[in-house]
């Protein structure tokens, strides 16, 4: 078990936690938490390859910065949708929001 695999296992554990959250949670905000966990798992993977693999430090940090930026944009828009859905329907339970018309 070399050092690289420890970080890959870490990244996979976070990915599994995130996937569990996306499948098993009904509150839309919890699903957003899980999505952020998955994105951070991907960033950790890139960082691990920067240190123990053959990815340059500059390259890895550039990739990770772009990923964080895109995650910020997606979180903002997702939260805006959740706020508006809550305002229109009164609840944010993804099981019950399955019709376009209220």
């Amino acid at each position: 078990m070399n050092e690289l695999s420890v970080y890959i296992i870490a990244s996979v554990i976070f990915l599994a936690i995130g996937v569990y959250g996306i499948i098993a949670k009904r509150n839309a905000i919890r699903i957003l938490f899980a999505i952020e966990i998955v994105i951070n798992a991907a960033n950790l993977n890139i960082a691990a390859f920067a240190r123990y693999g053959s990815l340059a430090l500059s390259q890895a940090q550039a990739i990770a910065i772009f990923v964080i930026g895109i995650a910020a944009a997606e979180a903002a828009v997702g939260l805006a949708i959740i706020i508006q859905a809550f305002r229109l329907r009164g609840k944010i339970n993804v099981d019950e929001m399955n019709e376009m018309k209220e």
Partner: protein
Amino acid sequence: MDFIVPIILIIFSSIAAILSLESRSLVYGAVSLAIFFLGLSLFFFYLGLTYLAIFQVAVYVGAIAVLIMFTVMVVGEGQRRKRSVPLLAMGLLGGAIILASFLMGISYFFSLPNPSMQPSFTLVSLARYVMDNYGLILFILALLLTSAAYGAVALARREVEETA
């Protein structure tokens, strides 16, 4: 036992991640999500990517966690529903499948050669690298973030009723 620091960080971060999904109150979930981001930042510090660690704290904890907490406080706690066992089982099954399938292929990483010496890293070299290779993409990312902010504000504002 020379992996003690990564293993402690893994345990800390996964407890924070599980708490953020499973805690009873959404606000505690948002707080533990912020702690998870901090744990990730400690990971980056330990791996030697100091700029990325500070960037993660500044953007994720400073902006995204604040945004999430603000939404959670405005939307309020949802109604307590009975825990649905089929959903929980499907979730655990999905997570277990992901974990198992990745761990099966992990023996590949044992055979990778040791990494070569890294060139010295300064912020100037990172800036030069980004501007040389990803300059246009940086510009597009800036436009994307601006339009995302604009779109989020436009989505979330109250529609002003036109009364005749």
